[in-house]
């Protein structure tokens, strides 16, 4: 299990290659979040961020068969098209890999202490949390 919070970019292929070293692994699901439309700066709470993500990964491991997992989240200044976050999950079968990957992403959006500040033409503004993100995290509690 690998959790990293960093300014630098990441290499999807390199990271997923590192998750294919166990012959029991038959499925590898990955998600990459990308900056859309406007440049932004991502602030976070060093220490708590890593801890919060590690807890989410532990929850995923308790619910699905997760053989290995990598979460990388960037902070600092990012521009449209830049990668923000990677969640990659290795499992024996695709059902567990897909579900755990989506679960980690949904929980990360509502529980990991990151804040986006967009640099719009009208000036900088903090992005508001979205109710749809809360709903996406909430549905996992109902066994969805």
């Amino acid at each position: 299990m690998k959790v990293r919070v960093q300014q630098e970019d990441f290499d999807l292929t390199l990271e997923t290659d590192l998750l294919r070293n166990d012959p029991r692994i038959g499925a590898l699901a990955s998600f990459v979040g990308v900056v859309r439309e406007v440049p932004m700066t991502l602030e976070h709470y060093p220490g708590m961020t890593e801890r919060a993500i590690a807890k989410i990964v532990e929850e995923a491991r308790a619910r699905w068969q997760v053989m290995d997992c990598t979460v990388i989240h960037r902070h600092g200044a990012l521009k449209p098209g830049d990668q923000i976050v990677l969640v990659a999950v290795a499992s024996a079968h695709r059902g567990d890999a897909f579900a755990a990957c989506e679960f980690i992403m949904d929980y990360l959006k509502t529980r990991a202490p990151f804040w986006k500040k967009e640099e719009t033409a009208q000036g900088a503004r903090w992005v508001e949390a979205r109710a749809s993100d809360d709903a996406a995290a909430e549905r996992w509690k109902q066994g969805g």
Partner: protein
Amino acid sequence: MKVKVRFFASIKEALGRDSEELELPAGVATVAALRAHLRERGGAWAEALAETRRVTAAVNQDMVKPAAAIKAGDEVAFFPPVTGG
């Protein structure tokens, strides 16, 4: 008792500071009480930590509910709802 209070994102900007060491008066023993205590400073404090605003709190780097207890030496953080991912 003494605690460390930290602020992030829009709350940090509104208050013009990211942290402070604070001696709490007797009776301020929960996250909600600390938030109300800071609001009493008025101005930007009353505004940024207003009851009508969604403010998330963490104690020792774990998200907690407003009723969560705080003790001497704790690190208590206040921040807006998170927007990562």
